[in-house]
């Protein structure tokens, strides 16, 4: 295609047709300011911060949604344009609760940065912030509308990426706000608590419910034995919070930090990820042999579980009954580990560090406890871990690396890849193949199941059987598969579904920003952890073998049933009631 020549601030540039002014300007080293624009989302044109002057036009044009035309002369840096942008920003600031110092996003806020970059010297308009209550109705997500700048990113991710539609814009004009229908609390609508809205929010209008204080309190309680587990996707991401390169692996530093602040034991969710593979793999084989419900769906992603409970309760039988690795871990600590250490379960506090906001609610599910105590007591996200690091004043970057404690800290590379989309499937195949055939798997890298694509599938010969598998991430992609299952057209044995785009490395509790290009680097790091592992198949994990020998006896056995498996709830009714 012929290129189009335009002039930006006196500099000639040739770009393909359909290029926006924003993109064209970036080619001339000019970064036009944006606010509602997000690289992974549709162009919205809402905020009007990216306005530029075009010769011959009366008003300004929004650079994000105006495509270039041959001969266009664009000015991005005149007094008129700078003052206009300041005016637009002032209009936004007047309706924004600017209590930056106590804001969750202080230091990592796009509005704050923009105010600085556009040289806002005075907020000269009257403050018109509506005093609206903060929605703290649930265990995962808090919404503070006084901070909302109505960019619409959260609406897009909730409706178009996740297909959940828990929030939308209500009312119009200056009464317009983003909220659940009838301005109910998030707990009253079918929100899955994935937290993807948090990851795209440019300001502090949506954030995780913070539980760090509970952790600090537990650590200083002399009567408590406090153990911690870290999810696979935390170790490749936390470094971003401390200026390290995206994809830095900081496992040893996290372990070292957690020991320094007083955890009695620092364990690894990867241990129970390996265990999940053994239980879930056996469940799959059992279903195949005994004519059980197929395709079997993975069950480790709690946002996904809520989604199917809300929207496809008729397919709950397809879900694996395995608890998620987080919950298996908690259940084992309060049984196997407690017995081993001679501790009372009620004296143990289990803390999880997760990439996920839905995990906070998962830990509070009614069926997730034994006797009177929950499997997992406190869940914090990667972002909250970063806060604890800062509060402690310990310099994470300078810490020596340390190893996890045994036995619940031992794991294989198969567990590590749980953190990326396709990982659970890959780990399961590595084990299922060898369990079924008795042969060693030569090529253990299932590369066609990797990567950020929303949907992947493969057929793997396992003995006499060709096992058809599919992998989806992002709930809208999950929906496509669920509809296929409903229509009887899903010719798969096993399907892995991750709620968040990219898998757990893109979880709602991860450092912000989390664009696709950042997620790709995080995924690379996940497979790096796998490659660096001594053992790369779950069934080779010696601690898991020992666990079965000493305690569980056999996969899918009586103890497993009691501790490691669960059941699901039809929430569609609740969903309807609350919506009507």
């Amino acid at each position, binding site marked *: 295609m012929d290129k189009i020549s335009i002039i930006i601030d006196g500099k000639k540039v040739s770009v393909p047709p359909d290029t926006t002014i924003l993109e064209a300007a970036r080619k001339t080293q000019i970064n036009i300011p944006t606010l509602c624009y997000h690289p992974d989302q549709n*162009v919205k*044109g*809402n*905020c*009007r*911060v990216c*306005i530029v002057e075009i010769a011959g036009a*009366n*008003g*300004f044009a*929004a650079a994000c*949604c*105006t*495509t270039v035309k041959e001969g266009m002369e664009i000015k991005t840096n005149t007094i008129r344009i700078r003052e*206009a942008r300041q*005016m*637009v920003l002032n*209009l*936004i600031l*007047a*309706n924004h609760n600017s209590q930056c110092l106590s804001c969750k996003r202080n230091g990592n806020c796009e509005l704050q940065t923009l105010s600085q970059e556009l040289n806002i010297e005075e907020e*000269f*308009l*009257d403050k*018109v912030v509506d005093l609206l209550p903060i929605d703290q109705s649930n265990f995962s997500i808090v919404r503070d509308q006084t901070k909302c700048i*109505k960019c*619409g990113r959260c609406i897009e991710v909730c409706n178009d990426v996740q297909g959940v539609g828990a929030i939308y*814009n209500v*009312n*119009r*004009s*200056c*009464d*317009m706000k983003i909220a659940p229908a009838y301005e109910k609390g998030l707990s009253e609508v079918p929100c899955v608590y994935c937290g993807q809205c948090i990851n795209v929010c440019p300001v502090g209008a949506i954030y995780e419910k913070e539980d760090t204080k509970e952790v600090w309190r537990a650590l200083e309680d002399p009567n408590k034995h406090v153990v911690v587990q870290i999810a696979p996707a935390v170790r490749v991401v936390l470094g971003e919070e401390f200026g390290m390169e995206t994809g830095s692996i900081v496992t040893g530093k996290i372990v070292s930090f957690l020991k320094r602040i007083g955890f009695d034991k620092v364990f690894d969710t990867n241990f129970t990820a390996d265990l999940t593979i053994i239980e879930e793999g056996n469940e799959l084989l059992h279903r195949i042999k005994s004519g059980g419900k197929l395709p079997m769906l993975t069950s480790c992603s709690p946002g996904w579980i809520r989604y199917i409970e809300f929207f496809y309760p008729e397919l709950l039988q397809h879900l694996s009954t395995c608890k998620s690795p987080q919950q298996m871990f908690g259940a084992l600590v309060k049984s196997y580990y407690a017995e081993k250490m001679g501790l009372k379960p009620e004296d143990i506090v289990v803390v999880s560090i997760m990439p996920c906001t839905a995990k906070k609610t998962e830990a509070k599910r009614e069926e997730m406890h034994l006797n009177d105590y929950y499997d997992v007591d406190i869940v914090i996200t990667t972002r909250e871990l970063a806060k604890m690091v800062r509060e402690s004043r310990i310099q994470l970057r300078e810490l020596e690396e340390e190893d996890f404690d045994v036995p619940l800290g031992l794991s294989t590379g198969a567990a590590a890849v749980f953190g990326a989309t396709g990982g659970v499937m890959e780990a399961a195949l590595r084990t299922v193949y060898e369990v079924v055939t008795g042969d060693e798997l030569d090529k253990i890298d299932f590369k066609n199941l990797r990567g950020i694509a929303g949907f992947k599938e493969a057929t793997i010969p396992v003995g006499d059987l060709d096992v058809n598998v599919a992998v989806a991430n992002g709930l809208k992609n999950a929906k496509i598969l669920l509809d296929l299952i409903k229509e009887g057209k899903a010719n798969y044995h096993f399907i892995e579904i991750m709620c968040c785009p990219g898998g757990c490395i893109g979880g709602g509790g991860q450092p912000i920003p989390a664009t696709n290009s950042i997620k790709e680097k995080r995924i690379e790091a996940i497979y790096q952890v796998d490659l660096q592992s001594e053992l790369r198949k779950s069934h080779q994990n010696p601690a898991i073998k020992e666990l079965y020998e000493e305690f569980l006896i056999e996969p899918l056995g009586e103890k497993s049933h009691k501790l490691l498996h669960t059941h699901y709830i039809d929430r569609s009714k609740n969903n309807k009631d609350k919506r009507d």
Partner: protein
Amino acid sequence: MKSFVSKLCGKIMPLSLKEYREHGGFLGLEKALFYMSPQEVIDEIKESRLRGRGGASFPTGVKWQLVAAEGDEEKYVVCNADEGEPGTFKDKALLEGCPFQVIEGLMISAYAVGAYKGYIYIRGEYPNSIDLFKKAINILKKEGYLGENILGQNFSFDIEVRSGAGAYVCGEETALIESIEGNSGSSRFKPPYPPNCGLWGKPTLVNNVETLANIPLIISQGAEEFLKLGTKGSKGTKLISVSGNVVNKGVFEVEFGISLREIIYDICGGLEGNKKLKFIQVGGSSGACLPELLLDLELDFDEFKKHNIGIGSGAILVVDDSCCILDFMRVTTEFFKHESCGKCTTCREGNRHIIKAIDRMIYGSGTERDMQIIKDIATIMRDSSLCGLGQAAPIPVLSLLKHFKDEFQEHINGYCSTGVCNFKGEGKSHG
């Protein structure tokens, strides 16, 4: 006064197909279907130099050509009958006076651009019009004017009536399209423009009621006849809705070229109680406010453009000297504050800050700074808003600031010469 596009209004029974036909109804459609190719129809409209009557005055033939040039199999024509501009009620006269004429215009447009489906989007506050159109469409279906192979020709067309819940923004064509699609009415950014990508993502022609009502006449009588009416740059006639402090209020058809003074003093009989004129607002609430000295301006798109004003929908609000400029501005801005869809920053946030500044002025605590705030916000709204609503909302504000600066100054000094504002604050030197 002229009688062209509205000549059948009030003369025939609106739902009598027989009477409509006896007065030349459907001659335009028949001529188009039997004797003209779609391109010839477009050429005829282009030749007539008809410009859109909804407010933007875009050349109608050019717009049709854009839609016709799109290769898509599926195209739509839409009649914008969401007459929501305050002070505008001229489309209602056509909708309820001669629905068949509007439908005929829509049908000819569909034939010309290659559409098989049309929508008439009538504002919810016109229940009578909605009812009439539903009935008119049923009659035409029965008589073979709508449906498959109309008049035995290779042209099939169907029309659906849609209506909004009363949002002003739905008169903006992209918001109107959103509303037809079942979404809440908020504007899309342009480009893409509806002729390329409109309803359901397909090429879509959106025309105003009055524009469409002109079509059958142009086609049946020929562009040449139409060109005899009006001025060099503005052909034909215009329906105007006159309201306010004027003796004769109502809808009038006038030929382009008539002066505003003639409209107000000759046609409408001057101001009520022989009061002094303060200003007229042309084009509805989003139109410019013109002081007496601009009254000799001729109704002509190009003449108006020279003064940077638009004819808009053809509404004229006449205001006498008992009106306080700030009070008027507040009412107007309050309207736009209510009607903004809330999508873009400037339109969503701008109006309420203008109102706050006005309030300070009318309650006696206003300063020069408030005047500057009003001007700055109105300017950013005009220059940076996403759609026509936000761009036009500040037009009255800016025109009032330009022509009545003294009255703002007066309020800053703590005085309202019309006696409308009652200074509750710390009025400075009262009087």
